[in-house]
């Protein structure tokens, strides 16, 4: 599982994930991702276009991070999921609790809403 991060304008950070967010994949990035995002206190958007699989462990990780950011009045949004990942998110109606956008611009709009 690969992860990279870059600051954007106006206090938003962009994270790019690549690989499989199955149990081993989540285990390999969760601590690093949480430690990179939560303490800095900025809203974050996550590019999922390179993620070919996401299971319930991935959803649990995103909900945990979103809750931690919300306590700092910041938001998390996901964007560009592949069709199979989008289907998984739809099964649990994830978009009703964490914004899932089609692209980066849409995700930035959702975290600033």
């Amino acid at each position, binding site marked *: 599982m690969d992860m990279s991060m870059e600051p954007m304008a106006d206090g938003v950070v962009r994270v790019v994930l690549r690989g499989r967010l199955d149990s081993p994949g989540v285990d390999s990035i969760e601590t690093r991702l949480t430690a990179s995002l939560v303490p800095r206190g900025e809203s974050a958007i996550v590019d999922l276009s390179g993620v070919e699989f996401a*299971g*319930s462990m991935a959803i*649990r990780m995103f909900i945990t991070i979103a809750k931690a950011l919300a306590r700092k009045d910041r938001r998390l949004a996901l964007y560009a999921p592949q069709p199979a990942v989008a*289907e998984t998110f739809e099964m649990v109606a994830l978009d009703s609790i*964490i914004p899932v956008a089609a692209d980066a611009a849409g995700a930035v709009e959702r975290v600033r809403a």
Partner: protein
Amino acid sequence: MVAGSIRLEFSGTPDGFRSAFEALIAETRVRRRVELVFEEIVANIVRHAAPAGAPAQVAVAVDVDDGGITLTFDDDGVPFDPTALAEPVPAKTLDGAPIGGLGVGMVRRLARQVEYRRTGESRNRLVVTLPPSGIASPVR
């Protein structure tokens, strides 16, 4: 999709299962659903059914025919019936969202049928049947 079967046996975390699924199920979207069921059920076995101090021994059979895809999970862990778990109510807000507990609900949504029994050999046997395409239960 072509008719066929595979058998996987492993201890702890499985490895190499994806290439086996690729050989059996050509359609990416259908294969991802099978992988999702596999991931969620094996993760549950590892978390809940593994005997103390030792990883559960798990055998998985995947059978494909025109009528659908059947995954049979057989493990030597402590009795654990995932069909007895309450299905989580979808959260409407981030504040009310539970952390975890979503996996079995996903499997139920994808599956046409989920059956559990404790065998006479003191093993857990879970049989999950998926339709050949599509999702058994529409998104709520």
